[in-house]
C-alpha cells in the first residue's frame, strides 16, 4: 500500500528519528511511504493557544497537501495518511473542519473532513488498516508505556499501541502506575503554567522511575520531549540508570539486526 507520511512539525524539527523509524517500519512491512514536502504543521498550537484565525492557512495547507497525496494526480495514489502522533491526529479530526467553519469556509470544512477520515495515527494504521499487531520487531529492554492524553482521548487509539508492544520480541513491558494521568505538557501550558506543569511532570517522572524501566515510550513526540526533558534533568541527580524517552515508532522499527544503541539513541 502507498502511504503518505505527515511527520508533524515537532518531529520534523527536533525528533527526526520518529519520522525515520516510521518510514523504516512501514517499508519493512512492504509498504511504500511518500513524504509530501509541502507539509508543515497541523495548526494545533495556534488553535489551542487561542489563535484560530492564524491556524486557518495551516489547515488549508494540510488539506491541500494530503488531498493531492490521496488523489489521482502524479503526486497521488496514497491510500492513507499516517501520523506518528495521537495529538496531531486528534487535531486533524476534531479541529480542522471546525477552524474552517469558524472562518466561514464550509467548502474547506467538507474537504478537511474527507482528508481527516483517511488520516490515521501510527498504531491505528498498523492494527486497523494494515491488520498487523506483530510487526516483527526486536527490542530487548524493559519498557513502560505512557499512553498520552490526546492519543487516548482525542484520537481514541485505545490499547492498540500496547497490542503492538506486547508482540515485540525480547521486550519486558511493565505497567506504568497512573498511566492515564497527564504528564503536564499541554503545549503552551508547560510555559504559561510552568509551576503546575512541573509538578505534574515530577509525579509522572517518579511513576516512570518506580517501574525500573530503561525506556519510557509513547506515541507522541511532544509528550516525549517533555518527559525526556524532565528525565534528562533528573539524571543529573539520579545518574545513568534514569529511563530514556523513546517513541513507539522507534521500538517497532528496531530489529535483531540493529544495534540497540543506534536505534534507541
Amino acid at each position, binding site marked *: 500500500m502507498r502511504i503518505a507520511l505527515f511527520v508533524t512539525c515537532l518531529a520534523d524539527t527536533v525528533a527526526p528519528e520518529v519520522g525515520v523509524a516510521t518510514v523504516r517500519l512501514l517499508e519493512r512491512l512492504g509498504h511504500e511511504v511518500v513524504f509530501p514536502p509541502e507539509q508543515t504543521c497541523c495548526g494545533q498550537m495556534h488553535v489551542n493557544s487561542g489563535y484560530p484565525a492564524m491556524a486557518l492557512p495551516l489547515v488549508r495547507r494540510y488539506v491541500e497537501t494530503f488531498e493531492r497525496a490521496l488523489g489521482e494526480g502524479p503526486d497521488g495514489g496514497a491510500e492513507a495518511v499516517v501520523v506518528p502522533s495521537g495529538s496531531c491526529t486528534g487535531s486533524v479530526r476534531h479541529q480542522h473542519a471546525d477552524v474552517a467553519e469558524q472562518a466561514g469556509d464550509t467548502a474547506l470544512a467538507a474537504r478537511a473532513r474527507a482528508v481527516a477520515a483517511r488520516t490515521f495515527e501510527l498504531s491505528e494504521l498498523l492494527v486497523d488498516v494494515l491488520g498487523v499487531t506483530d510487526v516483527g520487531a526486536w527490542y530487548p529492554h524493559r519498557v513502560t508505556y505512557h499512553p498520552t492524553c490526546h492519543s487516548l482521548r482525542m484520537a481514541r487509539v485505545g490499547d492498540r499501541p500496547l497490542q503492538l508492544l506486547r508482540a515485540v520480541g525480547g521486550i519486558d513491558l511493565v505497567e506504568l502506575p497512573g498511566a492515564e494521568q497527564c504528564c*503536564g505538557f499541554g503545549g503552551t501550558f508547560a*510555559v504559561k503554567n510552568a*509551576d*503546575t506543569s512541573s509538578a505534574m511532570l515530577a509525579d509522572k517522572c517518579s511513576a516512570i522511575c518506580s517501574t525500573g524501566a530503561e525506556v519510557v515510550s509513547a506515541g507522541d513526540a511532544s509528550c516525549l520531549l517533555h518527559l525526556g*526533558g*524532565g528525565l534528562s*534533568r533528573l539524571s543529573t541527580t539520579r545518574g545513568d540508570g534514569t529511563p530514556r524517552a523513546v517513541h513507539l515508532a522507534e521500538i517497532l522499527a528496531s530489529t535483531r539486526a540493529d544495534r540497540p544503541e543506534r536505534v534507541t539513541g
Partner: protein
Amino acid sequence: MTTFLGMPAAPPPPASSGSHLRGTDSFPHAAARTLTDDQLRRNLAHATTTIRGKRARVVAEVPDWEELRLAGEALKADTMARLPELLEQLEAAVTARGGVVHWARDAEEANRIVVDLAGAALDRHPQAAREVVKVKSMATQETRLNDAFEAAGITAHETDLAELIVQLGHDEGSHILVPAIHRNRREIREIFLREMPDVDELFPEGLTDEPRVLAEAARLRLRRTFLRAKVAISGANFAVAETGTLSVVESEGNGRMCLTLPETLITVMGVEKLVPTWADLEVFLQLLPRSSTGERMNPYTSMWTGVTPGDGPQEFHLVLLDNGRSRVLADPRGRAALHCIRCSACLNVCPVYERTGGHAYGSVYPGPIGAVLSPQLTGVTDDASASLPFASSLCGACFDACPVRIDIPSILVHMRAQAVDAHARDVDHVAERAGMATVAWLFRDPRRLRLAQRLSRLAGLLARLQGHPRHLSWLPGPGRSWTRTRDLPVPRGSFRDWWEKEGRS
C-alpha cells in the same frame, strides 16, 4: 404577513461584580502559592485519588452508562434550547401550588430579595434569634449571600458538615462537593476547638480527631440550631418545569432538616437547573450520585412542590438567579457549560486541580468546569478571568468523566480565543501574538520552515557552551519557564534533510 427581524441584539449582562466568580490574581500566580503548600497537596491527592477509584468502580457497574450520559446531554441541550418557555412553565406550576417565584438579574438583586424575605419572616418572631439555617448551596456561595445576611444583622448557619468546617474556619470552599477537601482531620479538630466554645462540655474526655467524634460534635451543635430555626435557605439540584417540584440531593440528612423543620423556606436556584419533566429526573438521579460521591444512590433525595398545609414549611419562595447565565446561553459554542449538574467528577479527575486546589481558581466554581463557566459568567476582560481558560493542559479527562458529556476541552479552547481577542492590545500580550504570528508565517511555507530548522541548530552552540552537546539546560526569556525544570534537546538535523539526503524525493 409580518417579517420577524429578531430580538434587539444588546448583549445580556455579565455576572455582577459582587459575585464570588472572579479572583484577584491570575491563575498561574495563585497556583504558585498553593503549589508550595505540601499539606494541601497531600490532602488533595489523597482525597481525589480515593474518590476517583470509587467513581470508576460504580460507573463500571452500569452497563448503559454511555447511553445514560447521552440521554443526560440531550435532555440538557433540549432544556437550554427552550429555557425561557420552561422557566415560565415552572413559575406557573410553583405559583399554582402556593409558592412565590422571584426573578433576580444578578447577585445583588438575589441577595436583596432573600434578605428582605428572611427579615420579614423573622419579624414575625420577635423573641427568636436573628438567624437562618442553610443547606449547602452553590448559588448562594456565588452571590455571597452570607455576607449580605451579616450586613443585615442576621446570622447564617451552614449545616452541611464540610460547609460548616469552611464557615468556622473563616475560609473559602475549594471543591464543589466537598468544600473542605483541602483540610485534613487534624486541622478540622483544631478549628472545632477554636470555634465551638462548648465543645469541652460535650466531650469531657477531650475532642479527638476521629472522623466519628468530629461528626458527633458537629451534629450536637447543628441539632440545637435546627430545632430553633424559623427560616431556611436552600439551593436546588433540580427543578421540574412540569410539576413545579424542587429537589435537593445530599448525604447527611442535614439538608432534609432544613427543608422540613423551619416555617419559611427560601430556595435560590440558577436558572439552568431546570429539567422539563418529572421522568427526566430518572436519568439525572442515576448520573449524579455515581459521578459525585461514587455512590449508587443518593442517601437523601428531598423533593417538595409548593406548600402543603400542616406539613413542612408553610411559606415557600423560589428565587431564580440569572447572574450572567443568559449571557452564557447566548453563546452557542460555550453554552453547554450550563448543562453542569455540579457533580464535581471533572474536578476529581483533573490533574491541574489535584495539584493546585480550588482556591487558585478564585471562583466558587473551581476545576475544569470553573475554568469554562466562571469566565463566561463574568466575561474575560480582567487578567484573572482571562487566565482561567489556560489553566488546563487539555488532557481531556474532564470530558470523559462528565456525566452530561460537556466537552470542556473544546469550550476551554473557545474561551482562549475570546481571552486572546479581548486582550489583543495589552502590552504583555503583544509579544505573544507576534511570536504566534511569526510561527504561523514560518509554517505557511515549507522553505521558511526549513530555514528556521537550520537556524535552530545554532542552539547546539549554546548547548556546548552550557557543557552538554545534546541538550539545553538554560534558555533565555520565556524559555526559562521551560528550562527551570526540564532540559530541551538540541535539534540534530530535520526529517526533511534526511529524506532528501536519502535521495527519496
